[in-house]
């Protein structure tokens, strides 16, 4: 097996593990994970309590981000926002409130059932969003589609972060911006971590 074959195999296993783990957070929000999630996490990251009161309980309970991308996104009415790895939709919902009815929110998620969940959560608030099943390394949108890309704890899951950066750049309009929160490592991860999908997905 070549190095490329091994990489592809590992990526396939990782994809399955990511789908499994985040589906579990969505399906069993009362369970305990190695990371904080749900209301405990959003309160830790300083989400506006007013947003949390307005948002559907299911969207809050299934939150699995690592920070608050809205803190620096400076979204304004009428903008088009792409939420990369939109999950159960809490960040997309908040984005929809900030860009208003003239704006547009687009989600992209690896898991089509999460897309449906995010859309249902947003519909419960009276809003709507597009959501596309897709990979962040190959964002299923045309060039120059969005004013802003937000993302929360997702890019670190990719083996091809350079490709993800290029894709975010491609789908942004000239003058567009990103506001993402993510996990970074100060040291190169050991091969045992890289080769373990459960640890990588964590």
């Amino acid at each position, binding site marked *: 097996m070549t190095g490329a074959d091994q990489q592809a195999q590992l990526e396939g296993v990782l994809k399955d593990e990511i789908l499994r783990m985040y589906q579990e957070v969505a399906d069993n929000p009362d369970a*305990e*994970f*190695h*990371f*904080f999630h749900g209301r405990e996490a959003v309160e*830790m*990251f*300083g989400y506006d309590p007013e947003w949390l009161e307005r948002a559907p309980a299911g969207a809050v309970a299934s939150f699995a981000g*690592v*920070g*608050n*991308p809205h*803190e*620096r*996104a400076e979204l304004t009415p009428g903008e088009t926002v792409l939420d990369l790895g939109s999950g159960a939709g809490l960040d997309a919902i908040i984005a929809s409130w900030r860009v208003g009815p003239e704006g547009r929110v687009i989600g992209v998620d690896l898991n089509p059932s999460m897309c449906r969940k995010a859309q249902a959560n947003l519909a419960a608030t009276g809003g709507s969003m597009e959501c596309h099943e897709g990979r962040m390394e190959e964002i299923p949108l045309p060039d120059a589609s969005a004013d802003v890309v937000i993302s929360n*704890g997702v*890019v670190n899951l990719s083996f091809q*972060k*350079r490709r993800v*950066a*290029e894709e*975010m*750049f491609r789908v*942004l*309009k*000239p*003058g*567009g*911006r*990103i*506001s*993402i*929160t*993510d*996990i*970074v*490592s*100060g*040291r190169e*991860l050991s091969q045992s971590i890289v080769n373990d999908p459960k640890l990588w997905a*964590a």
Partner: protein
Amino acid sequence: MFELLEDAGFTRVRTAVVPGFRFRKESTRNAAEAYGVKAVMITATKPAET
């Protein structure tokens, strides 16, 4: 990440540590600390002229 964004063409790349971020489980926290793992906020801009 900073370099990858600049290489992609982004400018004004800014990062800041997410205050208060931590893992729930102690074993994960310890491993994260050993590797200097932290959560960061990143903003960057695509130039108006590309």
